[in-house]
Every structure is written in C-alpha cells, then in structure tokens.
C-alpha cells in the first residue's frame, strides 16, 4: 500500500515536471536575492548563508504543500483513499514520502550549488547537505498537517504558512545551527542529532495528526 501510494504520486508528479522545477527555481531565486539586497561582502554573506539557505528552503517547501492533498481532493481520489481498509496513517506516510522526494530532495541537491554562491567551504557544504537531508522530512511531515487542515479553504495558501511556519522553527534553528557551527569550526554533530530527534518526533506524531485532520476536512 505504502509503495503503491508513493509510486502513484511520483508518477503523477513526473507528468507535471514543471511544478517541481518551479519550486527549485523559486529556491534558487530567493537565495540569490539576498546578496543583491545586502551587498557583495564575502565575509558577511558567508556568515548569514546558513540562515538564508534554510529560510529559503522553508519558503520553497510552503509552495508545494498546497498540492499535497488538493488535487486528490478535487477529483475525489482522497475520499476513496479514506475509504480503503488500510490505516490512513500509511496513506499519509506514503503521500508525505512522495512529497519529500518530489519537492524537497531537488532542493537538497541544489543547495550545495547555491552554497557556492556564498563561498562556503567543501566541508561546510557537506554539513549543509546532511542538515537539509535530515531536516527536510520534518518540513514535509509538519507541513502535511497544515495542508490537511487547510484543505479546500479559501485563502488556504497564505493560511498554511501562518500555521506551519512557527512549527518549523526548531528545524530551522538546528539545521542552520549545524551549518553555522561548521563555519565557526566547532562540531556540528550536536545540532544534527537534535535535528534528527526532532525529525523522529514529527515522524511519530505528524502522520497521525494529518490523518485526523484529513478525516475532519473530508466529511
């Protein structure tokens, strides 16, 4: 069931490749805007790079969250999924996993390239990659709760960011903290461990909350 859901969502996403690309380009453009606004001092840019890249990743993941359930809701597939005998937990997990692969993994892969714009060192780029790899599942997981709660509401796009962004804060803190520690020359491992712990906590609670929210939104 899990594999089927993931496969189905990936296929659907592949048929609409432009959506994936637009998220990635949004990410790149937002990150590139900061040096233009702040000025080209390398030292300053290097010190704010972790925060900028992470915040841009949060914003970019906001863009794709709307699509997580909306299309299935519109054509009625979601109701069918709710009626299946399998636990809704699994359905949600599959959809979140697919969302992560489609919307977050491209960002993670592009991030080191973007990091070069800020003159980050190889080791720091590696930490950036790891921190995003550990942290972006959190974005998909917590975001799915927001997506399920705002399903079919007017102004859902803005509302979802109001709901979800405050909950992202720990991921932002630990994720950019790890990168910053690596820039400063201290150990990034504690940050990454905490980020991993947060990811596990949200893995346990989020699919359950999303399942409950879906049942409320579709009744």
């Amino acid at each position, binding site marked *: 069931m899990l594999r089927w859901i993931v496969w189905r969502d990936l296929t659907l996403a592949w048929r609409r490749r432009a959506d994936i690309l637009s998220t990635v380009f949004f990410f790149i453009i937002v990150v590139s805007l900061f040096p233009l606004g702040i000025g080209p001092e390398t030292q300053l840019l290097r010190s704010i790079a972790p925060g900028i890249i992470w915040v841009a990743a949060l914003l970019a993941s906001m863009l794709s969250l709307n699509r997580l359930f909306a299309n299935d809701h519109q054509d009625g597939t979601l109701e069918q999924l709710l009626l299946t005998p399998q636990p809704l937990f699994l359905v949600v997990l599959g959809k979140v996993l697919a969302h992560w692969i489609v919307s977050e993994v491209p960002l993670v892969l592009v991030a080191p390239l973007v990091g070069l714009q800020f003159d980050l060192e190889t080791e720091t780029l590696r930490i950036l990659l790891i921190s995003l790899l550990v942290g972006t599942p959190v974005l998909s997981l917590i975001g799915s709760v927001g997506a399920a*709660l705002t399903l079919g509401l007017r102004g859902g796009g803005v509302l979802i960011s*109001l709901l979800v962004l405050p909950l992202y804060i720990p991921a932002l803190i630990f994720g950019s903290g790890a990168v910053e520690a690596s820039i400063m020359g201290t150990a990034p491992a504690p940050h990454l461990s905490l980020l991993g712990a947060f990811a596990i*906590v949200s893995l346990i609670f989020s699919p359950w909350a999303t399942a409950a929210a879906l049942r*409320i939104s579709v009744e």
Partner: protein
Amino acid sequence: MFYPVAGKMIPWFAIPAAILFAAGMYVGFFIAPTDFQQGDAYRIIFIHVPAAWMGMFLYVLMAIYAGVGWAFNARLASMMASALAVTGAMFTLVSLVTGALWGKPTWGTYWVWDARMTSTLILMFLYIGFISLQASIDDTRRADRAGAILALVGVINVPIIYFSVQWWNTLHQGATIRLIGKPTIAAPMLTAMLIMLAACWFYSVAVVLIRLRCIILEREQNAARFAEVNA
C-alpha cells in the same frame, strides 16, 4: 444550557477583577519600594509578568478545552477554546509590548533576541495561527476540530520550540543581557505581583465568559434565546 449560568457568573468575576486591579496598582505604585538598580521603571513588571504567565497558561488551557471538545464532541468546550484564544493572544501581546517598553530604559533597546522574548513571540504566532484557522472555516464543527488538532500539535511543539530557542540563544552569542538577578524579591513587590496575577485571572474568566456567551449566541441562536426567555 450554560448561557444563563455564564451570564450570572460574569459579575462575580468582573467585580473582583476590578477591585484586585485597583489594589494591585495601588500596592505596585505606592507601597512597593523603588528598585535601586532600575528605578521606578521596573514597576511595569506588575503588568508584564502576570500577562506573560497568563499568555502561556491560557494556551495550554485552550489546547485542553479544544482537545476535550474534539474527543468527546463537547461543543461547549470547543466554544470555550475559541473564547480563550483571543484573550490569550491579548495577554501575550500585552506582555510583548510591556516587555519592549520595559526593555528600553533598562536594557537600552526595545527588543533583543533573548530566549524568553523569542519564545513569547512564537507563542503569539501560534495564537494567530489558531485564530485565523478558525476564522477561515465557515462550518463551525470543522473549525472546532481543525483548531483542536492545531492546538494539540502546538502544545507538543511548545516545549521543543522553547528549548530550541534557548539553546539557539546560548549557542549563538551567549547570554549578553540577562534579567538583573535579584536573589530575593521584596515582599511588597511580590504581593503586588500576586494581586495583579489574581486580577488577571478574574479578568480572564470574566472576559472569556462574555466572549463565550457571544459565541453561544452566534452559533445556537434559537436555543440560547429560548434559555434567556426561560431564565
């Protein structure tokens, strides 16, 4: 129906709230001694600290009511949660504003990214999320339940956010500015603060009940009118 009971309870909380506010202000302004480090500016503490406590506490209370309302399908509890949200957000805002006003004369700045201030700000964001989610759902049953899920997710998140902000703060720069540590707080100061806390409590109950009555009226017009006529 709770409507007439709430109506009778309101004066019992509103009047003590007014008296306690007056008493707390009096003790705070005239009896409590001037702080030798901060001068008279510290007196804003008498509204700042109770407001901050209430802001945090009401969020938990709101989540509990919302959860109960969702789990047992108790409409009154859900309405209570919606009524609490606005008051809680108001207290959080008050604590932020008074904190900023207090910070200017003592720390020399309106805002620092201190762990407590940051987490209070985030608490404010959580309140705003809850209120705006409920406001954008027309179907009240769905609004109640969706709000409940959001509030519960928020409650799980609040400790995580709090600790992450604290670690973030200490890891970034070390605490540069700290609340001036007083080993013990002078007795009249403590008294004034506790009186003000009690005042805030009574005020909250009174206002929440008033708001609850409005919500009941809005949602169950026929039933509430009927109860009012009978009462």
